[in-house]
């Protein structure tokens, strides 16, 4: 009776972990350097904001120029003729105004006179 030797147990092989290369240590910044960097950033930002505001103001001024209002000059009234003072002329002028109003108000058909619309056939079904 052959006895099988036990299968050799395979040990899991762990991949070798790559150790990060040691970074070179940056030299610590001095407080004066940090302040200088912050001030530099603020300076750049203020220059950008200032420039954009300036452009906006310039463009507004150019696009909408407001004209200076001038006082209206009164229309000169033409001189009246001697006829204009005559009663016959005044009467004629009034009559023309009345005629103009009358013709403007005139309509060809007086709506009140529209005849009634009737359905005449009684419509009883034939007996």
């Amino acid at each position: 009776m052959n006895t099988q030797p036990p299968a050799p147990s395979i040990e899991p092989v762990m991949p070798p972990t790559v150790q990060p290369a040691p970074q070179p240590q940056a030299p610590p910044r001095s407080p004066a350097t940090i302040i200088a960097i912050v001030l530099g950033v603020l300076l750049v930002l203020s220059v950008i904001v200032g420039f954009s505001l300036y452009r906006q103001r310039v463009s507004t001024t150019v696009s909408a120029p407001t004209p200076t209002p001038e006082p209206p000059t009164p229309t000169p009234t033409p001189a009246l003729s001697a006829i204009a003072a005559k009663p016959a002329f005044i009467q004629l002028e009034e009559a023309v105004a009345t005629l103009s109003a009358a013709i403007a108000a005139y309509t060809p058909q007086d709506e009140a006179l529209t005849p009634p619309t009737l359905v005449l056939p009684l419509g009883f079904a034939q007996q």
Partner: protein
Amino acid sequence: MKKFTAFVILLFLLLLPVGHIQAASQQAYQDYLFQFSQYRQKYSEFQVAKNTYEKFKTLESQTQALSATKTMLTQRAQLLHAYLVFLSEKVTEEEGLTNVNRGLYQSLIRTELTFLEGHSQLIPSINSIEDATTVSEQLESHYQVLQIAIRQIVAGLSVGRLSVISRNFDKNVSAAQTLVNTSAGLLSSEKVATVNRWFLQITNKKNLYQQKVEEITRDSTGLTGYNVDDVDQKFNEILGKIGEAKQYLSDDISYLGEVVRTIKYLQ
């Protein structure tokens, strides 16, 4: 004081006929509107009774349908009568009508009123639905003649209203010509020439107006049609021509306005 009282009474008596004429037309119109409202109600009741009768065909529904039909026919005749009376009052009032036309229109109205009275007298003797249909057909066969007469009168009244304006216009053109002639020394020769050109334009336009009115009168007098719709269409064409006549007169009035403006100022 007595003289003043007598004057007031006299003035009242003089103005009374004018007030009476205005009241007559308005009263007739109010009566026409009332009769129209009554007709709508009676026609609605007639339709309900007719539908009930045709649905059930019972003796009771037949009696009710016959009664509602007679009432509706009576009211229909009264409505047309009221409309013709209103039209007659308008013809009496309209200042722009000539006596010939006024007489002609009143004669047309009298003929139609006589027909309606005869028609109304037949209604009480209706005893069956067949009778009612026969009596109704009497009005139906005459309806086109009635519609033509009505439209002739309505067109005549419209032209009459325009004639009133036209007559006033003519009077004022004459007044303007007199004013220019009597004041020739006050106007420069250029002004006189301009004014004369406006007067020429006024005469030409007035001729066009007059021709249009004659055309309207011809169309209205010879108004006919195959049916009521055809008559209606031709009547609308007449109304369109009255609108054109109005435009000519309107242009003429504006030319007279130019004459007034020309002589009013020095420059």
